[in-house]
């Protein structure tokens, strides 16, 4: 999250203000309706055990993941819109994520709304705001160093996932297949509904790509953090987030490879419009 904050520039906020319709629809409305409701329906329809249901709900209620920006770039989608949507959903996460978990997850276990707000503020908002502040005040001095920040973030993500997997190996081998199936369904349904919604909204092809990826890819690291901090009595709750963090990169990369082959599309990178050569 700190790395994400460091990568945010003033132009990114201008993008949010310049395209409020797409950012609000894609980044907030679709993000915070499709994935949470899909998670809830999956848990109910498949009658999942409480531990796993909580983990799936947590993944569904989290904001868009920062990996979506990279995947959108690879897919030749609208990167600026992707960044704008991630910023919008992340900044609203301290309120919307606990509210949705409280509303949907409350069916299974008791959820402390205020404690969860504080956790999201601590895990998401503070690191992002500190990152933005450092970039704003020292950006030019640290420009070369900032270019390497994705490396630091990537190493952190890989180490977090490896750490979670290593302490949960036994659980993965016992309940892993069920969770993997649910995670794949959740992600694919989310992406399909995101793409359908984007097509209904009649946005351009690159924007369709960005919205689909944004809806399907979640900040699953946050889901794991919240499961660890708030659902210690439900040991399997960390598992969906851990598996989702691996899976959405695979599905995102496959989706990107399909979308990038589209002929004659416009690709937006920041404020530059580039015609695809393919």
């Amino acid at each position, binding site marked *: 999250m700190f790395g994400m904050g460091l990568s945010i520039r003033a132009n990114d906020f201008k993008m949010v203000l310049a395209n409020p319709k797409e950012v609000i629809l894609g980044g907030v409305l679709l993000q915070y309706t499709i994935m949470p409701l899909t998670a809830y329906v999956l848990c109910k329809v498949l009658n999942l055990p409480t531990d796993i249901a909580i983990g799936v709900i947590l993944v569904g209620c989290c904001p868009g993941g920062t990996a979506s920006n990279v995947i959108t770039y690879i897919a030749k989608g609208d990167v600026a819109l992707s960044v704008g949507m991630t910023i919008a959903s992340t900044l609203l996460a301290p309120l919307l994520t606990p509210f949705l978990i409280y509303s949907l997850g409350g069916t299974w276990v008791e959820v402390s709304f205020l404690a969860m707000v504080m956790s999201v503020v601590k895990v998401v908002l503070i690191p992002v705001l500190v990152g933005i502040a450092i970039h704003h005040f020292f950006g030019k001095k640290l420009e070369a160093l900032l*270019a*390497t920040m994705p490396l630091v973030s990537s190493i952190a*993500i890989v180490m*977090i996932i*490896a*750490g979670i997997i*290593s302490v949960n190996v036994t659980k993965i081998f016992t309940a892993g297949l069920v969770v993997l199936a649910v995670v794949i369904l959740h992600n694919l349904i989310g992406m399909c509904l995101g793409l359908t919604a984007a097509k209904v909204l009649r946005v351009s092809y690159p924007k369709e790509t960005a919205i689909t990826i944004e809806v399907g890819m979640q900040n699953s690291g946050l889901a794991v953090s919240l499961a660890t901090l708030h659902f210690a009595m439900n040991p399997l*709750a960390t598992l969906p987030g851990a598996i989702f963090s691996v899976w959405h*990169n*695979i599905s995102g990369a496959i989706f990107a490879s399909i979308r990038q082959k589209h002929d004659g599309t416009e690709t937006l990178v920041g404020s530059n419009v580039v015609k695809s050569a393919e």
Partner: protein
Amino acid sequence: MKPLLSTLKSLTGFVTKYIGVIIIAFTIWACVTPSMFSWTGKLYVGLLGRRHVRHGALY
């Protein structure tokens, strides 16, 4: 300093491009040799304000 930053930038490009593959590789590695990575879980949870977490329970 410049060669070091240049190397880091190349490494950043490689890692961000193949992040999915890297995550899968480390996931399999963590499954095969859990003891190699168990310390990262403790560090991660320590940063979030807890000392130790194993199987979701606090110790």
